[in-house]
């Protein structure tokens, strides 16, 4: 087959084939450069347009009413931290626990089913998770709330954390576990204090990447935590978040709000990239999990 395709025909002289090869390989380099251009453009615009609006007031002031210049996103920054923080409290224990279970039951049917479900959950569009949180939290509780937003984000985090935890725990050498068991340490203590402890860096990496992923989510928050122009930290009231605030400002017709949207986007991107880059830097670039 190869000879047919590679062809030692009349018109396929070596020079032509070499030229074609070099040309195609250059095209791949071109594709890579073309792909990276939007990255630099987005980051460049964020810096130039965002920096001029990020000032002290941006972090300490509330959103200004229409037509009034100035104002900030203090409530949105706190809101993002709160919604994501509670999502971590809900999602991480569940994800890590389930991951430990999957790691110690590699082959049974139930574990395989759960593993399959976790993989499937990763493919569920985040807006659909938002509808789910609306159905199970917002409607029964009678209104948009911080808690609903956190539940939605936690549901997105759980499969990511579960699968990284499992992958990291499976990498722990079985000798460690055996040594601990041979010394008479109970199984649960071995799993938590030896196996999970050894895999801790990997699990933490997975958790941080999952946090970075959900911190940038807008769609599942639109009708769960909703948004709030006022200061609120209550679990049971709507709360403002950076992503929703940037979205609202970006599609507004007011120049002042649009400028604030760039500032918010810069802060949001800085937050997410800091998490991603921080993890990669600490783990030496080996963190490719949670995808």
């Amino acid at each position, binding site marked *: 087959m*190869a000879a047919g*395709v*590679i062809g*030692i025909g009349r018109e396929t002289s070596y020079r032509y*084939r*070499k030229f*074609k*090869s070099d*040309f*195609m*390989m250059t095209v*791949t380099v071109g*594709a*890579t450069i073309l*792909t*990276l251009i*939007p*990255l630099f453009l*987005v980051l460049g*615009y*964020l810096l130039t347009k965002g920096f001029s609006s990020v000032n002290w007031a941006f972090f300490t002031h509330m959103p200004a009413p229409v037509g009034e210049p100035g104002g900030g996103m203090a409530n949105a920054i706190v809101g993002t931290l709160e919604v994501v923080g509670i999502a971590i409290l809900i999602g991480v*224990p*569940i994800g890590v*626990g*389930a991951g430990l*279970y*999957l790691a110690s039951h590699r082959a049974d049917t139930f574990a395989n*089913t759960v593993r399959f*479900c976790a993989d*499937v959950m990763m*493919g*569920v*569009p985040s*807006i*659909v*998770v*938002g*509808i*789910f949180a609306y*159905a*199970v939290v917002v409607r029964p509780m009678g209104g948009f709330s911080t808690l609903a937003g956190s539940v939605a984000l936690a*549901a997105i985090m*759980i*499969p990511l954390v579960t699968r990284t935890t499992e992958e990291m725990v499976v990498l722990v050498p079985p000798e460690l576990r055996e040594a601990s068991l041979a010394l008479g340490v*109970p*199984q*649960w203590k071995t799993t938590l204090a030896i196996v999970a402890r050894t895999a801790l860096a990997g699990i933490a990496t997975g958790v941080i990447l999952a946090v970075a992923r959900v911190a*940038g989510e*807008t*769609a599942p928050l639109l*009708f769960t935590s909703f948004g709030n122009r006022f200061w609120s930290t209550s679990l049971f009231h709507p709360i403002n978040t950076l992503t929703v605030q*940037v*979205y609202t400002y*970006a599609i507004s017709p007011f120049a002042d709000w649009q400028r604030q949207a760039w500032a918010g986007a810069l802060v*949001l*991107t800085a937050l*997410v990239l800091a998490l*991603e880059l921080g993890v*990669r830097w600490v783990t030496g670039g080996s963190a*490719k999990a949670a995808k």
Partner: protein
Amino acid sequence: MREARLADLESSVAEKLAVVKRERATHAGARLFGDRVFNITTFLLALLILVLLLGLAIALIYDSLPAIKQFGFSFVISREWDPVSDEYGALPFIYGTFVSSMLALLIAVPLSLGVALCLSEMAPDWLSMRLGFLVDLLAAIPSVVYGLWAIFVMGPWLRDHVEPLLQFGLGWTPFFTGPKIAVGMLSAAVILAIMIIPYISSVCTDVFRVVPHFQREAALALGATKWETVKTAVIPYGFTGVIGAVILGLGRALGETIAVAMIIGNSSEISLSLFHPSATLASVIANEFAEATSDLHVAALVELGFVLLVLGIVLNVVARALVLGVSARRFEGGD
């Protein structure tokens, strides 16, 4: 005398042994109890994932029942979406989702393949790692930030520089007619393409990297050039994986919400022209859900969500099976 001492000793040893045995038994009991609590806890947490997915499906089906009852199958073939008269048909959004995702793939797949080949075949390891890192960063930027950039930078640029060219060259087709505006199907497809490239290219890169070296060496030994090696040895070997990566990208594109909602223009009209505003399943949910006017409106939106859920799950399962098929083959190859 001696026998008595021996008997004494024996009984005391027996006593001590009994104590040790009893202690061991209680320890083992405590240990078993701890293990059992731990096992049951982690089992329940694992079960929760199953419940979560089932709950997701059930909640969506249950909440869309009013719309399913009211419209039945005509829901997916009706082009009427009118919250004012409570008439709902999903066709415009199914069309919008399909066209925007396909266009995005059309742009993203060749570029992703280029990136993957450059990273796996061309670049030296140190460069490949850094470039791969940069491409991955594209996936880290939040969707809303892409949307913002698309509204204020990319959309206007497409309108001023790309759309006139397309209209000049291909204006005779129905796809590039009408007024040139910054928001619309074309802008949405381009931003989607940018957003899904990192996913497709990173899977393709991994797939090409597991192609065994003897596969390449064999082609090279037959006198193939680098490109011929790629074409005859690398791509065919990883072909199912590449298809899997493309399907994974398609799944991403279908479900992408905010960036699309910001740039697609949100019109429930079906138009062949790519300059025309449109809407996708996800974007209409994002736009209308929080302000849905009637119960039927909510139910119709949830039904759109259910369609998305099914599409997302099916594509994800198929893609995973294909990609895993390739990486599993590595072990058969004995590399």
